[in-house]
C-alpha cells in the first residue's frame, strides 16, 4: 500500500489535534478515580500516571517498530495467493525516523498518546484491587505487543486494512479514531483483568448477588467526561487526516459527529436510568457518554450527522444495559464501567461503519463484512491473546493486592498516604451480610 501524503496545512493541523489527545487520558483518569473508592483514589491517579509513562517508554522501545505505518517495512505471509501483512519490521527505539511532520512521524506521535489511552482503560475495571507494579507490567505487555500488533493490522497497512484491495471487501477494515485499536483493545484487556483479578471483597454476597459500591466523587466523573470530549475531538480528527487521508475541512464533520454521538448516547443513558430508577444516574450517564465517544471513533469521518445521532442512541442503550448485564449476569466487577463503555462501545462503533458509512459515491459492497472480520479478530484473537498474556503475568507476579491491602485501601497499603488524609470517608463493608 502506498504511504499517504499530507499537505503542510494538514500536517500542522494534525499536530495541533494530536496535542489534544492527552485530554482524553486525563478525563479517563478522573472518571476511573471518581468511580472507585475514596481510599484508592490517589493510587488510581498514580497508576494512571505510571501507566502512561510505561506505555510511552515501551512504545518508544519496540511498539512503533512493530506497529509501523503504511508503506513501511513489514513481514508478510502468503495465504491463498495473497500477501497477508501481519507485523511491521521497523527499527527499535524509533531509529531512522525523521521527525519533520511526515505521516509516519505523526503516526508515531499519535501512537504514543493512543497507547497510553488504551492502557488506562483497564485501570477502571481493576480499580481498588490491582497492584501498581502489576498494572505497570500489564501495560508493558499491552504497549509492547497487543496494541502494536492490532494497530499495524488496522493503521499500519496490515491485513485488515488490505481486505478491500485483496478480497474486495469494501475499503478494507475502517477505523478512523481507534474504536477498535484503542477502545476495543483496551476494553477487552479490561475484561481480562477483571476476570483475572476477580471481584472486590464485599461486592458479591455468598449467593452471587452484587452489592452496590458507589463511586466516591461524581464531580470527578462528570468533569472527566467533559475533558475526554476535548481529547476525543483531537483523536478522531487527527485519525481522519492521518489514516483516512481526509482533507483538513473534514475536521468540521468529524467534530460534529463526535459530539453528536456522545451527546445522544449520554442523554439516552440519562433517560433510561431516569425511567428505571426515577432519577438520572450520574455514573451510568458518564458511561453512556464515554461509550458514545468510543462508538463515534470508527466512522466519524464517513457518516452524516443523523447517522451519528443514531449510532449514539444505540451506544447509549447498549452501554447502559451492558453495565448491569456484566455486573449481575456475568458477575464481572468493573467499577469504572470500562468494559461496557470502551469494549462494547468500540465494537458497536466498528460495526456501525458497515451499517451507516458513506465511504464513496460508488458504494462498497462488503464493507460490513470487513467490519465483521475486524470484530471477529478482536473477540477471537485479541481477547484470548490479552487474557493469556495477563494470565501468564499473574502466574509470575500476582496482580491482585493482598486482602489486607484491600481492607486498608490501596492508597495507604501501596503508597503510604491517602488522597484525603483529613477525612474518614468510608465504613467497614467487609463484615458478614
Amino acid at each position: 500500500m502506498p504511504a499517504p501524503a499530507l499537505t503542510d496545512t494538514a500536517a500542522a493541523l494534525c499536530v495541533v489535534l494530536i496535542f489534544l489527545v492527552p485530554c482524553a487520558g486525563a478525563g479517563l483518569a478522573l472518571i476511573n478515580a471518581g468511580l472507585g473508592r475514596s481510599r484508592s483514589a490517589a493510587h488510581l491517579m498514580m497508576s494512571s500516571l505510571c501507566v502512561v509513562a510505561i506505555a510511552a517508554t515501551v512504545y518508544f522501545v519496540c511498539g512503533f517498530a512493530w506497529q509501523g505505518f503504511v508503506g513501511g517495512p513489514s513481514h508478510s505471509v502468503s495465504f491463498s495467493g495473497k500477501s497477508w501483512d501481519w507485523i511491521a519490521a521497523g527499527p527499535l527505539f524509533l531509529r531512522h525516523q525523521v521527525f519533520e511532520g511526515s505521516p509516519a512521524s505523526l503516526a508515531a506521535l499519535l501512537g504514543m498518546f493512543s497507547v497510553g489511552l488504551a492502557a488506562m482503560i483497564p485501570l477502571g475495571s481493576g480499580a481498588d484491587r490491582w497492584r501498581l507494579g502489576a498494572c505497570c507490567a500489564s501495560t508493558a505487555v499491552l504497549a509492547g505487543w497487543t496494541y502494536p500488533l492490532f494497530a499495524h493490522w488496522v493503521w499500519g497497512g496490515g491485513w485488515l486494512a488490505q481486505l478491500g484491495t485483496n478480497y474486495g471487501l469494501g475499503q478494507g477494515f475502517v477505523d478512523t479514531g481507534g474504536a477498535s485499536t484503542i477502545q476495543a483493545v483496551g476494553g477487552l484487556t479490561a475484561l481480562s483483568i477483571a476476570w483475572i483479578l476477580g471481584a472486590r471483597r464485599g461486592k458479591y454476597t455468598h449467593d452471587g448477588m452484587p452489592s452496590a459500591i458507589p463511586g466516591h466523587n461524581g464531580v470527578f466523573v462528570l468533569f472527566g467526561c467533559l475533558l475526554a470530549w476535548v481529547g476525543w475531538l483531537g483523536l478522531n480528527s487527527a485519525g481522519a487526516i492521518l489514516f483516512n487521508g481526509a482533507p483538513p475541512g473534514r475536521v468540521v464533520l468529524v467534530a460534529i459527529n463526535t459530539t453528536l454521538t456522545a451527546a445522544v448516547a449520554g442523554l439516552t443513558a440519562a433517560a433510561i436510568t431516569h425511567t428505571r430508577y426515577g432519577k438520572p444516574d450520574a455514573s451510568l450517564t458518564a458511561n453512556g457518554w464515554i461509550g458514545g465517544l468510543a462508538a463515534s471513533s470508527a466512522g466519524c469521518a464517513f457518516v452524516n450527522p443523523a447517522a451519528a445521532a443514531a449510532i449514539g442512541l444505540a451506544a447509549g442503550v447498549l452501554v447502559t444495559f451492558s453495565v448491569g448485564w456484566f455486573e449481575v449476569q456475568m458477575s464481572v466487577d468493573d467499577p469504572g464501567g470500562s468494559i461496557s463503555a470502551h469494549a462494547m462501545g468500540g465494537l458497536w462503533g466498528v460495526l456501525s461503519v458497515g451499517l451507516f458509512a458513506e465511504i464513496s459515491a460508488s458504494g462498497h459492497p462488503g464493507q460490513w463484512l470487513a467490519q465483521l472480520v475486524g470484530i471477529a479478530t478482536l473477540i477471537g484473537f485479541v481477547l484470548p491473546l490479552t487474557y493469556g498474556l495477563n494470565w501468564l503475568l499473574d502466574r509470575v507476579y500476582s496482580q491482585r493486592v493482598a486482602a489486607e491491602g484491600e481492607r486498608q485501601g490501596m492508597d495507604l497499603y501501596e503508597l503510604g498516604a491517602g488522597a484525603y488524609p483529613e477525612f474518614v470517608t468510608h465504613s467497614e463493608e467487609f463484615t458478614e451480610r
Partner: protein
Amino acid sequence: MKILGFLLLLAGWAIVITAVALLVVEAPRAAFVLAGIGVEILGLVLVIRAHPAQRGERE
C-alpha cells in the same frame, strides 16, 4: 471449560479468516464469517461460565 472456551474463540476466528481467504462468492463467504462469529460467541459463553463471582474472593 475455560480453556475450551478460549480454543473455541480461536477456532471461530480461524473459520472467519479461512472463509475470507478461500471463498470468493459473497453469500457463502458471509455465511461462513457469521458461522465463525457464532462459534466465537459459543466460546465466550463458556469462558463467562468459567468465571463465577466467588473466584474473585480469593485470599
